[in-house]
């Protein structure tokens, strides 16, 4: 399963919210290989940013040969991606990294902010397991994801910092109760590091295996430049987030 770097065609690039867009590209060779938790490294051709930008694969349509990438516009690189129009090309390197371990029966997905995007692909591949998702955001406007998860998960739990949707508070506010009342055998968490660390701690204290997905500034995405390494907590060598991750077992890194 070789990694590929090629110019791929943009099919669609539409707003999901004010600052979040979904890019759909035709990349059948990458779509075929992709696993949930993996990412692609994008280079907008001829655009100013020199380096690529890592974006998780939010979902895959193998039949159509397409990848969906959902991203928030935060700086130059994502702004350049946002400028892409249908029929434009973009250079896509992937699929990169190691994805989630799918050997579970009753998983709970936990997503915060843009971390909710790659969990769509994960939920797709976890079917037919009985999957639940807990999503957290600052406010209602940030949590436009429910429709994407329809048919993929059995239950959706929501928290917002300001209480404008779901339970007021953070995902970790709701988590202990969920773990007490439901019989999850796995937690997959993707979101801000502080949230993932909190979830990992609660998961451990409840004896539920937990996988986290880390984010680091990346240059090569191939394990060569060591931009993205993190300390490993299990006594082994430092980990390369781009290659050994981005998905890790919680105890490896927290």
């Amino acid at each position, binding site marked *: 399963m070789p990694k590929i770097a090629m110019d791929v065609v943009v099919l669609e690039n539409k707003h999901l919210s004010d600052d979040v867009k979904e890019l759909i590209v035709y990349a059948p060779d990458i779509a075929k290989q992709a696993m949930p938790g993996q990412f692609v490294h994008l280079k907008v051709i001829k655009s100013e940013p020199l*380096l690529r930008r890592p974006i998780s694969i939010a979902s895959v349509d193998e039949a159509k040969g397409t990848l969906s990438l959902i991203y928030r516009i935060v700086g130059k690189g994502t702004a350049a991606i946002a400028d892409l129009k249908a029929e434009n090309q973009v250079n896509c390197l992937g699929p990169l990294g190691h994805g989630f371990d799918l050997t579970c029966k009753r998983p709970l997905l936990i997503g915060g902010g843009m971390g909710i995007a790659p969990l769509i692909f994960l939920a797709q591949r976890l079917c037919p397991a009985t999957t639940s998702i807990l999503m957290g955001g600052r406010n209602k406007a940030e949590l436009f994801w429910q429709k994407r998860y329809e048919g993929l998960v059995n239950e959706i739990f929501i928290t917002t910092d300001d209480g404008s949707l779901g339970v007021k508070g953070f995902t970790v506010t709701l988590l202990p109760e969920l773990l007490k009342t439901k019989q999850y055998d796995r937690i997959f968490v993707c979101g801000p590091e502080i949230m993932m660390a909190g979830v990992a701690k609660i998961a451990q204290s409840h004896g539920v295996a937990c996988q986290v997905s880390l984010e680091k500034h990346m240059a090569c995405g191939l394990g060569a430049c060591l931009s993205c390494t993190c300390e490993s907590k299990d006594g082994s060598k430092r980990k390369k987030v781009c290659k050994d991750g981005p998905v890790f077992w919680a105890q490896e890194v927290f």
Partner: protein
Amino acid sequence: MKQNSRLATEIAGIKMKTPVMTASGTFGFGEEFSEFVDLNQIGAIVVKGTTLKPRSGNTGVRIAETPSGMLNCIGLENPGIEYFLTDILPRISHYDAPIIVNISGSSVEEYGILAKKLDIPEIAAIELNISCPNVKEGGIIFGTDPLSAAAVVKEAKKNTKKPVIAKLSPNVTDIVVMAKAVEEAGADVISMINTLLGMAININSWKPVLGNVTGGLSGPAVKPIALRMVWQVAQAVHIPIIGMGGIMKAEDAIEFFLAGASAVAVGTANFVNPSAAEDVAKGIIKYLEKKNVEHISQLVGQLKCN
């Protein structure tokens, strides 16, 4: 890429199929790029800077993008020379590309110890990194003072029969002084340039972008400086030069040859285009064909200044 007689190059006894190498720290140990580059066909693999003991490098954010460039403060993370020799080298030594090991010491003696350990058949040459801006001990200290640089080169030469490449820092007033110092001390080849010390600030947090505050600038932004330095040094020394700094495509590489480099290395380009080392070589072949130049060596130092 099929082997091409226009490109076959030998410098200081290092035989290469093309004069396009990969720059240390930007190509891992080669194997990370094996899906994009034929490691049997590229000029040489210069592996990540290696030290006596394993190093975990700097903490915090390690790279930042800048206009047409990037800053890095990896800080020489590496598994140490022993692990390299026992675990990594056996995995990569079967490729045709010569393996050149880039080494950093925190004392003159350490360079000697490292050079000795690398005096083995699997290694084609040793590159002395006396120019890493991202570590306190060693690194750039040796690369900004001609006497220290010479001492490092002498110590390495004493300890190995391999060709010794001295990698120069651009963070100096007069690069020619440094080049002459390492030449006199016995360096077989000069490679240049390492990164320029730079910095970036996050104006929202009022903090440095990089964990180590400053970092090394590389990429197209530095090409004009690198090219100028290669040109200056080429006129002053008699040993071959490996030119690097912002080479993204064949055209950039050709500028370096004309300025006086006998070989080139691609660094940052590998992050943008993982096939860069091969693509640059292919582009050079096309250029030589178009210009009816039989061999790349006929370009070296051919800049016409009047």
